[in-house]
């Protein structure tokens, strides 16, 4: 048990370290100075109030998308459709933000709720198809991403009425932006969303670990057949898991729509928030605290990567190499761990036999 706990910490930490080493090697091959590169990377992440503000700002949606992926993971499901659910949540939040006239204490919660419900409805589809017809959720949720991308563009044009690529700004009563936080961090776009994200991580922990619902969901994740035998409704839990996962994803979209951008832009490509969520969940080992830390790291790397362009003339794409390397090491780390445990198990059995 101890060893397992140790490995769960060690593998991600080692992976991060090795990812950075890979980054350094690529810098050397590319003829860049790794010391300068990493200095400006870390400066860009945490070196100034502004950097910290932007890192926290970028972390908020990643925490949500990470929680969304992790929640489904914990119940044995792969929600690769988080990206699409983020877009749907985003557009719903912006719609409410623009079209309703309410005092803030109603407007903001309503916009957040709209994001959650819209994305939950979107996520319901692959969940339902899986439960009812056993259609593999990876396929359906991936395909739903494309439907979401083009649907949101269409909604932006026809329902919200975008003429010049971008919606008008949402009303201030629905905005998470905070002049105070922006001032504290010298003009970063930090908004209150990070607090909601941390709160959501606590809710995530609470649902999974402290409620009957969470217990059932995890049980289904561990062993479907046993859960069924124990009298749990596997199908109901699959749909529920997707719906809750979608709610987290929708809030990730709300972070962008109500916090970072205060609006939405027509887009021909994905935001990447949902896909990054997969990496965040993996590195965070699907735990609440892990997801928060991993989201902070990836957000910081992304923001620091921009500073690397200016500080060390290194293309910011390099950060993507580092993130990808970390993910690969984490993934193979778990494989390695699995092998180690297996070997140990066998040895033990061997000993017992003797």
């Amino acid at each position, binding site marked *: 048990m101890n060893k397992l706990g140790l490995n769960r910490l060690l593998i991600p930490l080692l992976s991060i370290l090795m990812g950075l080493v890979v980054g350094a090697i690529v810098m050397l091959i590319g003829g860049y100075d790794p010391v300068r590169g990493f200095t400006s990377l870390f*400066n860009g992440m945490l*070196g100034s109030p502004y950097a910290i503000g932007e890192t926290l700002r970028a972390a908020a949606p990643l925490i949500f998308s990470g929680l969304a992926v992790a929640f489904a993971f914990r119940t044995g499901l792969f929600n690769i459709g988080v990206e699409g659910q983020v877009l749907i949540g985003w557009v719903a939040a912006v719609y409410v933000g623009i079209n309703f006239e309410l005092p803030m204490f109603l407007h903001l919660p309503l916009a957040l709720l709209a994001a959650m419900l819209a994305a939950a409805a979107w996520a319901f589809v692959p969940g339902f198809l899986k439960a009812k017809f056993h259609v593999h959720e990876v396929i359906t949720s991936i395909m739903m991403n494309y439907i979401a991308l083009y649907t949101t563009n269409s909604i932006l044009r026809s329902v919200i009425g975008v003429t010049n690529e971008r919606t008008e700004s949402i009303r201030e009563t629905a905005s998470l932006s905070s002049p105070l936080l922006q001032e504290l961090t010298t003009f970063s776009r930090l908004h209150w969303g990070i607090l909601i994200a941390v709160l959501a991580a606590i809710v995530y922990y609470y649902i999974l670990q402290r409620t009957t619902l969470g217990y059932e969901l995890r049980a289904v994740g561990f062993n479907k057949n046993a859960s069924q035998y124990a009298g749990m409704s596997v199908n109901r839990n699959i749909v529920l898991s997707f719906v809750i996962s979608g709610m987290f994803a929708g809030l990730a979209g709300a972070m962008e729509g109500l916090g970072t951008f205060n609006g939405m*832009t027509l887009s021909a490509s994905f935001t990447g928030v949902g896909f990054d969520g997969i990496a965040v969940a993996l590195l965070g080992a699907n735990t609440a605290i892990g997801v928060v830390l991993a989201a902070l790291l990836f957000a910081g790397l992304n923001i620091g990567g921009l500073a690397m362009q*200016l500080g060390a003339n290194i293309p910011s794409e390099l950060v993507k190499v580092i993130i990808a390397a970390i993910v690969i090491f984490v993934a193979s780390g778990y494989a390695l761990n699995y092998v180690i445990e297996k070997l140990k198990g066998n040895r033990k059995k061997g000993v017992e036999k003797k």
Partner: protein
Amino acid sequence: MMNKKKTILSALAAGLTLSTVLAACGGGDDNEGASNGEGGGSEAGDFKVAMVTDTGGVDDKSFNQSAWEGLTKFGEDNNLTENEGFKYLQSSKQADYQPNLQQLARDNFNLIYGIGFLMAEDIQTVAGQFSDNNFAIVDMVVDAPNVASITFKEQEGSFLVGVIAGLMTETDKVGFIGGVESDLIKKFENGFKAGVMAVNPDATIDVKYAEDFNSAEKGTAIASGMYGAGSDIIYHAAGGTGVGVFTEAKNRKKNGEEVWVIGVDRDQYEEGLPEDVTLTSMVKRVDTATYEVSKQTMEGNFPGGEIIEFGLKDDGVGIAETSDEHVPADILSQVDEYRQQLIDGELTAPATDAEFEEFMKTVE
């Protein structure tokens, strides 16, 4: 068991704190170093100019690339070194625009370009925060005292390719395919229509919008419809959607049909190969614009708060140099006459639907 867990956790916490402190220290040192460098730099009267690309990246074979070519030329002409005196920062997502603009402002760049109208909002915000820096935006108007808005008279260049199309069509039918309907693309459409009508009032012009800048399939479908209905020349102002127009034209040319495409933004001669379907292109010289505005700024004449329009007169728009491949010399000389009239102001190319209506009255 609990104890061990706690030790691990606290070790982790200590590690994190340590790395944070280290990073912070590193940050402090580096910042000082950087600001010292800047101080020295500005004392020497060094001029620093930079641009932030949109998500297309610096090698998009279009807009961003052209802007960077202008800056590169400016840098070379003024003995600036890349990355020190002139520089670009790439944005891989929309969220990167603001941090990129801000870090350049913090690093005291004298002039910072935002390439593309999607950056309008961010330029507006950052220009407000950093009132001592100069900014410029391409293809959009941002109202702020320290922002120069660079726009192009696309209608003038489009007028000239319209003249070519009007004179060269054999079916008296030409087509226009726009990306997304907006004030900007309307300039292309109306200029083109006016050019055609000026030389060939009997011609009909088929106008369609794809409602998408990145859908080659839609481009192919619309072009197929237009060529099928008898148009023999199509002018596209549709970005990536235009790729589909070229595909359709090439397929038809392979089957022996005589069809042409007029390219946009830069010389699209190569896109037409090997079937050779590019008749001419309406080029938009973003490089000229970035070069000129940088030069003005370095000379102390930053056009802050102004809208600078690059037209035929400033070589900001025009027809591609390869036009003589397929366009006969007598037609090119007519194009030259119209060019001169537009420059002299004897003729005005319409930019909006209303202006086009007015223009048509003069033709009749």
